[in-house]
C-alpha cells in the first residue's frame, strides 16, 4: 500500500500535553516536518522557552536546551556562537518573547544572530492560566483584564514582526497563522525559509505564528479558529516583512 501521509520522523513518540484543539501541536508538526525535509533535523538544537511549550524539548527529536523565561534568544546566541554549523532555533510564546524577553529578542535581532525564532502568538499567557499578554487585543478578556484590555490603562498590543523588521540586523521575518489549511501550508513555507536563511548564514530569522488557545480564550476549538481569523488577523496582518535578497 502507498503511504500518503505519516507522522514526521522529526517528532518523538511522546504524546503532546497540549489541550484539545490547541494549535501548538500543528506548529510542532510544521517545524519538525520543515527540519526533516531540509535535512536539518539531526543538526538542529532546540532552545525551549517557558510557557505551554516548555516541554518542546521532549517532542522534537534533536538536541535541546531549556532556557529561563524570556531568555531563549540569549541562550540560543551563546549556543550558536559555539556551534556555528548547527541549526539553532528557539520556540517561544508571546509572553516569553514580547514581555519578559523583549530585550533578549530585540538585541538578538539587532545583532543579526544567525538563529531562527519560532514565535507563537496566542494573545494570552496560556500556561499560567489566561492572564493578559503583551499581545492581548484591546477589548479581549483575560483573567487580569476581566473587563477586556483597556488601552488607557494597559496600553496596546505589540506587533513583533513589524517592530523587528525595522532592524537592520534581521534577515527574514514573516507572520503566518495556523487556523485553516491554506494558512498552514503558507506557515510551513515560511518556517522552511526561516531555517534556510540560517543555513545560508544570512542572519536572524523569525516566524510569528498566530495560534489559538481555546482553553484560555474560553471557546470551543472551531470558534477559537474563527476568532483568530476575525479578530487577530486584522490587527496582526499576515505576510512577509523581510526576505534576504538571495532567498
Amino acid at each position: 500500500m502507498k503511504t500518503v501521509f505519516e507522522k514526521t520522523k522529526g517528532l518523538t513518540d511522546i504524546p503532546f500535553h497540549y489541550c484539545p484543539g490547541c494549535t501548538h501541536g500543528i506548529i510542532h508538526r510544521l517545524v519538525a516536518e520543515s527540519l526533516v525535509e531540509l535535512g536539518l533535523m539531526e543538526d538542529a538544537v532546540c532552545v525551549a522557552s517557558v510557557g505551554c511549550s516548555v516541554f518542546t524539548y521532549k517532542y522534537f527529536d534533536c538536541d535541546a536546551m531549556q532556557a529561563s523565561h524570556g531568555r531563549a534568544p540569549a541562550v540560543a546566541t551563546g549556543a550558536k556562537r559555539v556551534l556555528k554549523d548547527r541549526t539553532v532555533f528557539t520556540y517561544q510564546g508571546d509572553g516569553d518573547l514580547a514581555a519578559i524577553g523583549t530585550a533578549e529578542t530585540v538585541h538578538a535581532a539587532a545583532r543579526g544572530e544567525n538563529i531562527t525564532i519560532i514565535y507563537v502568538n496566542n494573545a494570552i499567557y496560556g500556561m499560567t492560566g489566561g492572564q493578559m499578554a503583551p499581545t492581548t487585543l484591546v477589548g479581549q478578556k483575560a483573567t487580569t483584564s476581566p473587563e477586556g484590555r483597556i488601552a488607557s490603562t494597559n496600553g496596546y498590543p505589540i506587533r513583533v514582526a513589524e517592530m523587528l523588521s525595522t532592524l537592520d540586523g534581521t534577515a527574514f521575518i514573516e507572520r503566518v497563522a495556523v487556523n485553516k489549511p491554506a494558512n498552514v501550508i503558507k506557515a510551513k513555507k515560511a518556517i522552511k525559509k526561516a531555517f534556510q536563511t540560517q543555513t545560508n548564514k544570512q542572519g536572524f530569522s523569525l516566524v510569528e505564528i498566530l495560534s489559538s488557545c481555546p482553553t484560555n480564550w474560553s471557546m470551543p476549538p472551531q470558534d477559537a479558529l474563527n476568532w483568530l481569523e476575525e479578530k487577530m488577523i486584522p490587527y496582526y496582518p499576515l505576510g512577509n516583512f523581510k526576505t534576504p535578497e538571495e532567498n
Partner: protein
Amino acid sequence: MEKKLMKGNEAAGAAAILAGCKYFFGYPITPQNELPEYMARELPKCGGTYLQAESEIGAINMVYGASGAGARVMTSSSSPGIALKQEGISYLAGAELPCVIVNMMRSSPGLGGIQPAQGDYFMATRGGGNGDYFTPVYAPASVQELVDLIIKAFDTADLYRTPVMVLGDGMIGQMMEPVELKIPEKKEIPAKDWAVKDKPTKGDNKLINSLYIIPEELEEHIQGLFSKYEIIKQDECMYEMFNCEDADVISVAYGTSSRIVRNAIKKLENDGIKMGLIRPITLWPFPVEAFEKIGSKTKALLCVEMSAGQMIDDVKIANEGRLPVEFFGRSGGVVPKPEEIVNKVKEILGGNK
C-alpha cells in the same frame, strides 16, 4: 618566569585565556570594565569570541548557551550586575553547567557607590538565586592570587559541573601588581559527554535542563547536587592561617580586608600584641576546619569586613560558640584603616591582655 605589572581586571582576563576560556559575555559596569575590554581585544586573537550582551541577564544566559555547548566560558560584572545574573546562576546550577563568574564588588545596596566593598558575601555564598544550590566562591587577596584562582575556578567548574564565582572587589580589580602568567598544569577533567556538541549526536539527544516536573525526580536531582557539594566541601576548601599560634586575638578576613589586617598585625606586634589571621580563600565552602585549630591562648575572634557584617555569620557558625566573636567593618566604599583595627583589638583585649 618573568613577572609583568598588570591591573587586576586585565590579569583576570589573561588568566582566563590561559585557562582555555574561549567565550566571554559581558556588560559594562564600574569597576570591572577593564576585564571585558581586555577580552574584547585579546579573545579574537586566539580564536575566541567576545560579545557585549544587552544586559547582565542577557550575558549570563549566553553563558548558559555556550556552556551547554561544552565551551569554557566566563562573564564578569560588579554588584548590581551580579544581582541581575542571579536568575541565570540558579539555572546554571540547576542544569549543572560549568562557567566562571567574576564579581569585582562595589558598594551597595541599590545603585550604592562605585568604591570597593565586600557587601556581596551573602549573595555569593548563599546562592543569590532561587532554590537549593551553592556556588563555590574564590576570594583572591592579590592580583597574582586572582590569576591563580581564576585558572583554578575553570577546573573546579568543569570538574563538578557547577558555576563558580571569583569574588574580588574594586581594589583587586583596579590595582596593579606584578604577576606571573604561567601556563597552567593540565588537570584531569572528565569529557563533556553531556554537552550539545558540534556534531549532532545521532540517536543520543542531549538535553540541557533544570526542569523536573515530578517532585520525587526533582528531589533526587537536588540530592545529587548536594552530594556533589559534600565532595566540594571536603576536597576544595582553601584557607590560609597566618601568625595564629599562641595569638591573643585571631582576625578573620578575606580579599582586600585581609591585606589591611596584615598591616594591623605588624602594628600590633610593636605593642606586644599577637594577632593571627584566618583568611578564607574559598568563602563557600567556608573553612570551618581552620577554627578547630585555634589554640587555647586565643581570647577572641575579630571578623574584619568591608561591609556592615556578613561573613561574621559564618565565623560564628564555624566558631561553635567557643570564643567571643567581635566585628570591625567599614561599608559604603570606606576602606578600614589598620589603626582602626589596632584600636578595636586593644578595646577587645582591654586590660586583660
